[in-house]
C-alpha cells in the first residue's frame, strides 16, 4: 500500500466509524466528546476543553420508524435520521450537545432532544452586517462557554481558546489547500476519498487531522499531476453522501473540483481573524464574514455568483446541486441560483439527497445522461 493509500484508508476508517473514533479518544485521554449539530458552532470552545467535538450529520439508509412519532414526513431527511438516532440512544454517550438554530427545523429540533445528553442552544444573529450582531453573538458564546464549563467541569482559559483558534485556522487553511490538490489530482483523490478526508475531520482532533492531511498533500504532490480525461464539477448543497452515490461520480469520471457543501467547504470557508479583540469577539466576527450559505442571511444573494466564480476559476464543466430532501433554506436559494446559472450559460443538474434511501439507480441514470450531454 502506498503512503497515499495508507493515509486515505486511515481517514476512511475514521469517517466510517465515528463511534470507534470517540471510544478510542476516551480511552486515550480520559475525556469524552461533545456533539456538534449542523451547521455552525464555535467548535474552538469545545476543543479548548479537551473534549472531542463530534459532528452530527445523520446516517445513511436508516429507515425511519421511531422518529415518525415526533416529526412529520416533510421534515428534512437529515433531521429525520438524527431524530431516529436520538430515539435509539445513539448520542447518549456525548457529554453534551451544541445546537445552533439557523433554520426553522433546527429551532424546533433544539426544543425536543430525545437523548439523555444535556443540550446547549444558541442563536446566530442574522442581520450580520451590524456591529450589534457581533455583540449579540459574543454574549451567546459567553453563555455557551459557561454551560460547557458547567456540563464538563472544565475551565476554558483564554490561553487554551487562543490555541484552539490557531489549530482550527491551520486546519481550515490546510483543507482549502486540499480542495485544490484534489482538483488537480482527481486520479489520486477520487470523490469517495475526497469526502472521507472531509468527513473524518468531524471525528478527530483537528491538529491530528491537519498533520495527516499535510502529509497526504505532500505525498500526492510528489508526483506530477496527470491530465484528466473526465468531467469536472462544482457541487453545492448540505452534503453529498453516501459512498454509493459518490461511487457513481467515480464511475462516470466526474471529478469534484470544488464544493460548497455545508458539511465540507462551508466549514472551512472563513477563518477566525487575528486582532486586538478577545477570542470570543473574533469568533463571533467570523460569522459576520461567512458568505454563500443558505442559512447565513444575505440580502444580496451572493451564493449563485460565488458558485459561478468557482466554476470559472476551476474550469468546471457544470454545477451539481445536491438538494437535501425537504430542506427549505436550500430550496429557497435554488430558483435564484438556477436563473443565474442559466443566464451565464452554466450547466447544472439538481439531484436529491435522501438519507433514507439505499438505492441509487435513478441518480445514476440522471448523472449518466447529464455527463453525456456535457
Amino acid at each position, binding site marked *: 500500500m502506498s503512503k497515499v493509500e495508507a493515509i486515505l484508508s486511515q481517514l476512511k476508517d475514521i469517517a466510517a466509524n465515528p463511534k470507534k473514533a470517540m471510544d478510542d479518544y476516551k480511552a486515550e485521554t480520559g475525556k469524552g466528546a461533545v456533539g456538534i449539530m449542523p451547521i455552525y458552532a464555535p467548535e474552538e470552545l469545545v476543543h479548548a476543553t479537551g473534549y472531542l467535538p463530534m459532528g452530527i450529520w445523520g446516517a445513511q439508509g436508516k429507515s425511519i420508524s421511531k422518529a415518525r412519532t415526533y416529526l412529520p414526513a416533510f421534515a428534512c431527511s437529515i433531521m429525520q435520521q438524527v431524530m431516529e438516532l436520538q430515539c435509539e440512544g445513539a448520542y447518549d454517550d456525548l457529554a453534551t450537545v451544541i445546537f445552533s438554530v439557523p433554520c426553522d427545523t433546527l429551532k424546533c429540533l433544539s426544543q425536543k432532544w430525545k437523548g439523555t445528553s444535556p443540550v446547549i442552544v444558541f442563536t446566530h444573529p442574522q442581520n450580520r452586517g*451590524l456591529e450589534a450582531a457581533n455583540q449579540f453573538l459574543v454574549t451567546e458564546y459567553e453563555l455557551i462557554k459557561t454551560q460547557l464549563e458547567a456540563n464538563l467541569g472544565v475551565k476554558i482559559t483564554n490561553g487554551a481558546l487562543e490555541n484552539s483558534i490557531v489549530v482550527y485556522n491551520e486546519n481550515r487553511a490546510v483543507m482549502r489547500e486540499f480542495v485544490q490538490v484534489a482538483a488537480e489530482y482527481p486520479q489520486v483523490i477520487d470523490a469517495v476519498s475526497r469526502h472521507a478526508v472531509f468527513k473524518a475531520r468531524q471525528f478527530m482532533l483537528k491538529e491530528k487531522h491537519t498533520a495527516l492531511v499535510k502529509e497526504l498533500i505532500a505525498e500526492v504532490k510528489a508526483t506530477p499531476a496527470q491530465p484528466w480525461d473526465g468531467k469536472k464539477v462544482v457541487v453545492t448543497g448540505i452534503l453529498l453522501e453516501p459512498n454509493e452515490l459518490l461511487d457513481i461520480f467515480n464511475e462516470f469520471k466526474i471529478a469534484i473540483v470544488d464544493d460548497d457543501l455545508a458539511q465540507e467547504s462551508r466549514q472551512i470557508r472563513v477563518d477566525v481573524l487575528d486582532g486586538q479583540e478577545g477570542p470570543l469577539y473574533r469568533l463571533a466576527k467570523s460569522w459576520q464574514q461567512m458568505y454563500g450559505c443558505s442559512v447565513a442571511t444575505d440580502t444580496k444573494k451572493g451564493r449563485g455568483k460565488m458558485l459561478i466564480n468557482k466554476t470559472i476559476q476551476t474550469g468546471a464543466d457544470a454545477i451539481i446541486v445536491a438538494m437535501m430532501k425537504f430542506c427549505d433554506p436550500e430550496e429557497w436559494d435554488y430558483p435564484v441560483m438556477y436563473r443565474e446559472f442559466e443566464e451565464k450559460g452554466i450547466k447544472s443538474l439538481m439531484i436529491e439527497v435522501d438519507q433514507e434511501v439505499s438505492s441509487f439507480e435513478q441518480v445514476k441514470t440522471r448523472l449518466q445522461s447529464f455527463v453525456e450531454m456535457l
Partner: protein
Amino acid sequence: MSLTQGMKAKQLLAYFQNRADQDAREAKARGDLVCWSASVAPPEFCVTMGIAMIYPETHAAGIGARKGAMDMLEVADRKGYNIDCCSYGRVNMGYMECLKETAITGVKPEVLVNSPAADVPLPDLVITCNNICNTLLKWYENLAAELDIPCIVIDVPFNHTMPIPEYAKAYIADQFRNAISQLEVICGRPFDWKKFKEVKDQTQRSVYHWNRIADMAQYKPSPLNGFDLFNYMALIVACRSLDYAEITFKAFADELEENLKAGIYAFKGAEKTRFQWEGIAVWPHLGHTFKSMKGLNSIMTGTAYPALWDLHYDANDESMHSMAEAYTRIYINTCLQNKVDVLLAIMEKGKVDGTIYHLNRSCKLMSFLNVETAEIIKEKNGLPYVSVDGDQTDPRVFSPAQFDTRVQALVEMMEANMAAAE
C-alpha cells in the same frame, strides 16, 4: 370619515382592506414608495416615512381564500420553487413574477388577468422580520434579488431561554435604528421622530382594540365566534399603524360588548363545547372548517395565531427596548416551555374543552413541535386534542373527510368529559 360613518364593523373591514390596497396603487401612481412587508415586521418606520404597505402573506391568504392559489403556485413551480417551500411564499413569488413580467413586457400574463388576486403594485423596497419564521428571511432575500431592490431585515433571534434577555433587546433596538438610517437613505429625507411617536401611539390603540375583541371569547356562552378573528386579522396585519385598524376593531369590540349585554351570543344558545385552534387557518377551506365545527355545536374561543399581533409596548420608551421585546416575544419565536405556557393561558381564558392542532405542510415552525406541545398540555390540563393535516394556502393538502372524522372524535371526547363532570 363621513364615508365610513354608520358602517358596521363587517363593512368597515371590507372597506379598509380595499382602501389599503388602493392607497398602495395610488402611491405607486404618484411615484411614491411602496413596501412589501412580512406580517409581523414592524411597520412603524415605513409608515412614519409615508410609505404605502402591502403584506404578501395577507395577500396570498386572500388569493387562497378566493381559490386562486393554484395558478400562482404553478408559476412559482415553473421558476423552480419546490413544493416544500411555504405556500404563502410560493403564491407570492408567483404573483411577483406575473407583475414583473407585466412591467417588462407591458402585457399582463393570462394567469394574472384571470386571477382573483387583489391588485397590488410591485414594491420599491421590502422589510422582513423572522419572529414567525426564518422562511421569511429566505423569501425576502429572493424578492430583493429578483427585483433588485433594498431589503430591510429586522432579525429577532430565537429566544431559546425566557425571559427575553436584555442583550437581545439591545441588538434588535440597534436594528431599528439601522432601519431608520436605511429609510433615510432610501427616501432621501430625515426621519420624522415626532410623527414616529404618533405612529407608535396609533399602533398601540389598534392593538388595544384588537385585544378587546379577543377578550370577548372569555364569556360563556361566547358573543365572539373565534373564526371572526381570522377574518379581521387582515387589518391587524396590514393596517395596525393606521387608524383603519383602530376604527374597525373598536366598532367590532363595541358591537360584541353590546351583544353580550343584550345576551346575544355567537351560536345563539347552540354552543355546546369550546375549542382552541392552534396554527394558521386553512384559508382555502376556511368555510368548511368553520361549518363542520358549527355543525357539531363547537365554538372556537381560543387561538394563539391572531394573538401574535398583541404587539403592546411602551410607545414612550426612547430606547425602543420595549418595542423590541414586543416584536420578539411571539410565542413561536420562543422555547417550548414558553409556547406551552402561552397556549395554556389562552385555553384557560377561553374556557376551552379541547384543541385542534393544524399540522401545516407549509410551516415547519408551526408544526414540528406540535407533538411535544400537545403532550405536555394534555398532561397539565387533561384536555383532549386532535391533529389535522392542512396547509394555509395550498388547497391540495387539506382533506375535508379527514378533518371531519378527526374533529368528530374530538367533539365526542369533549362531550364525554363534560358529561363526566356533571
